[in-house]
């Protein structure tokens, strides 16, 4: 490995009202290196990256490329210095197509003077998608693309112009394993070309797999920086959260009781004839590949997607939600897949977001009960270990993982009968993930039925009592989760059963 520095950061500081996000960070990234950057939610990783991208202004700090100081005042400065970015939050213009999104902010190829050369643009886009080995429709507004494809568009943006240092802030949270492998091979290629990749993730296995060196941040400071070969998952966790974590999954409490929800022959444009039941206190996993209809199934039960046919019974009574409002009123709630788009109102306070689903309970005759809102929100927030200086702050000021906890807190406040989780730990750090798993277990132990969808199969295997597998909208298997290992799990997802 060459030891030449591609980028060095000295004494970087940034504070927000009430929070010191970065307290004098010193770190350097070498050429030809894949560098892991990890730390708890709110440790300051994204802030560091946003400063380098010219989106956020630092309070103090200097940057050096090959020992020459550079200034970063805007995203232009940043990209002209060879820095490329995949940001944690998808920031796509939803009514632009993939090409337009990928080249947003960069100059388009032109012809006849000022006219955009769409053909050339398409060619350049295809070159990028070829390197990434992905294909998604280039001409349709990205709002029509699947969540995975949207994530790939965001990734492709980093490759609109050639860079020297690529910053990837949790690029893989919305990807399937297949896309993730593609991304990893792209990273390897970059490394072979002598470029630098800074990889931020809460998936420590990934970090250990692909990086050469790892920097651990805690509370806005660097606490450790070592070669990956000298680190293990346990040492990473203990330096991240400042203590050891015995296991990734809390102990299973209680056991399932009588049937709570049963669905039969559910069908619509994405799912075909699905039937299963959920018992009170049970954690049911829905296994399958991205695009198999898992999300659509949850949405159908939640009333946000219409059913063509099928029946549902909740506690023995007919359950026919025509909107999320009906579902919530019946005690069926959903933690949706995309928190920014579906889960949160960024411009409103944490209080308002947590209480949003429960306003009817937190008011008297339409008048808000501010005291109750305050108490119950804090209660729910504490339960998920939400880290925030003040619940009156906008949700947009929270770190990504803490935003996810707000979505979670919102549904927990409801004391749901049926809790459906679509990618519940997206962007959540190991410590808090354990907390969230504990809450899921506690809720189940108190009689809530839980349905969980996750592209992290360890999560499904670690939590679920039983797993229903679906493929292309059809139900393929239903298995007790007693002797399923990772390999057989994947086989079931692909609709294969090995003997």
């Amino acid at each position, binding site marked *: 490995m060459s030891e030449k520095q591609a980028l060095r950061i000295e004494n970087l500081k940034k504070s927000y009202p009430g929070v010191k996000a970065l307290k004098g960070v010193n770190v350097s990234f070498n050429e030809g290196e894949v560098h892991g950057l990890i730390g708890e939610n709110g440790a300051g990783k994204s802030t560091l990256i946003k400063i380098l991208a010219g989106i956020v202004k630092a309070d103090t700090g200097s940057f050096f490329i090959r020992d020459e100081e550079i200034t970063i005042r805007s995203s232009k400065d940043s990209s002209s210095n060879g820095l490329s970015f995949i940001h944690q939050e998808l920031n796509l213009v939803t009514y632009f197509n993939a090409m337009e999104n990928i080249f947003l902010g960069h100059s388009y190829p032109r012809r006849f003077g000022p006219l955009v050369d769409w053909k050339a643009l398409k060619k350049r886009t295809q070159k990028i998608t070829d390197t990434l080995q992905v294909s998604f429709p280039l001409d349709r507004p990205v709002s029509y693309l699947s969540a995975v494809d949207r994530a790939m568009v965001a990734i492709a943006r980093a490759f609109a112009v050639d860079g020297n240092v690529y910053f990837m802030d949790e690029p893989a949270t919305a990807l399937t394993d297949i896309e993730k492998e593609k991304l990893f091979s792209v990273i390897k290629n970059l490394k072979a070309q002598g470029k630098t990749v800074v990889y931020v993730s809460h998936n420590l296995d990934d970090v250990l797999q692909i990086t050469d060196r790892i920097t651990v941040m805690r509370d806005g400071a660097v606490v450790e920086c070592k070669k990956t070969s000298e680190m293990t998952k346990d040492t990473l966790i203990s330096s991240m959260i400042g203590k050891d974590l015995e296991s990734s999954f809390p102990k299973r409490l209680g056991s399932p009781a009588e049937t709570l929800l049963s669905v039969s022959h559910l069908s619509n444009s994405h799912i075909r004839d699905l039937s299963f039941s959920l018992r009170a206190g049970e954690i049911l996993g829905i296994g399958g590949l991205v695009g198999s209809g898992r999300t659509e199934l949850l949405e159908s039960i939640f009333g*946000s997607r219409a059913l063509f046919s099928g029946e549902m019974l909740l506690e023995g009574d007919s359950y026919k939600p025509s909107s999320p409002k009906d579902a919530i009123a019946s005690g069926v709630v959903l933690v949706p897949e995309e928190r920014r788009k579906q889960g949160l*109102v960024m411009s409103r306070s944490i209080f*308002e977001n947590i*209480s*949003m689903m429960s306003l009817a309970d937190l008011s008297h005759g339409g008048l808000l009960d501010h005291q109750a809102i305050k108490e119950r929100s804090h209660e729910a927030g504490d339960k998920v270990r939400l880290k925030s200086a003040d619940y009156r702050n906008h949700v947009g000021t929270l770190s990504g993982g803490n935003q996810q906890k707000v979505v979670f807190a919102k549904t927990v406040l409801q004391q749901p009968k049926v809790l459906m989780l679509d990618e519940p730990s997206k962007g959540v750090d190991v410590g808090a993930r354990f907390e969230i798993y504990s809450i899921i277990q506690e809720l189940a132990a108190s009689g809530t039925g839980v349905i969980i969808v996750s592209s992290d199969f360890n999560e499904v295997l670690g939590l679920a009592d039983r797993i229903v597998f679906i493929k292309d909208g059809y139900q393929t298997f239903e298995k007790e989760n007693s002797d399923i290992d990772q390999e057989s799990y994947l086989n079931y997802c692909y609709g294969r059963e090995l003997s």
Partner: protein
Amino acid sequence: MKQTALDNDKEKRTGAFIRTWGTLIGFLLLMTIFSAIRPDVFPSGRNLKNIIEQVATLSIVASGVTVVMITGDFDLSVGAIASLVGIVTALLMKAGMGTFASILIGLTLGTSAGLLNGLIIAYGGLSAFVGTLATMTAYSGAALLISKGTTVFGLPENFRFLGQGSLGFLPISVIIMLLTLLGIYILLEQTTFGRRLYAIGGNEEASFLSGIRTKQIRFIAFGISGFFASLGGIVLTSRLYSAHPQAGSPFMLNAAAAVFLGMTAFREGEANVWGTLLGVLIMGVMGNGLNILGINTYAQSILTGVIIVLAVLLSSLAKKKA
């Protein structure tokens, strides 16, 4: 790039201060300037009362528009609703119907007109701009048709009370304005309805998935806007003691301008009722002050436009600093 953290902190706090209070300070500055130039006329009790009375109707209408604009919608039809309701109420009274009953019918008509907007936009899926542009045209057409394009005079004596009477030293129109502001404030800040409005304005999809009936709330918001537009129209008719089929048309732009000005005050980029009041006052003081200085009304319009741009610009600059 290199700056001490202390400087930076100070700068940030100044930024936040300007963001919250800048528009109010601008307003006070405006008052001070006019008072300094014409100390004999402008700050006199009579003139100030005059200003308040002048802006009372606008602030009633603008309060309603605030509700609609919180969800990200827009209402171009308030001026036309005010005119239409003014005409209808006036004609009903002339036809011999009791004053109170006529007013009640007028309010019902205006609220229904607003709800029709809501129906077209929230349930029909038209954009608020296009939807209310269309109904604005239709409502003003109706006002002109019913009145045959002429001013309606000869209203009953007891109808003067709303726009011209007073209770002690407080004009009735100002009392109605204060009650409206208070009512809207309570609605926005103290009720679940208000919370839901702001939530929809911030993220409609997330609101829907949180169990909020987003269409219904937007529908009702248009109804509220229609109600206050008609209330403003009735008070205006009483103040003028006659109804003209286009009397309300200045409301359309002025109410929107006031809400936009108000979005620069107290809260960042969000419509709020005290901001709207401030916006209305700024426009009222500008009009009155420039009148006193003898500046011609056409030039006044230009200046008002400039002021709006400046206010919004300044507040967005302060925002960037943070």
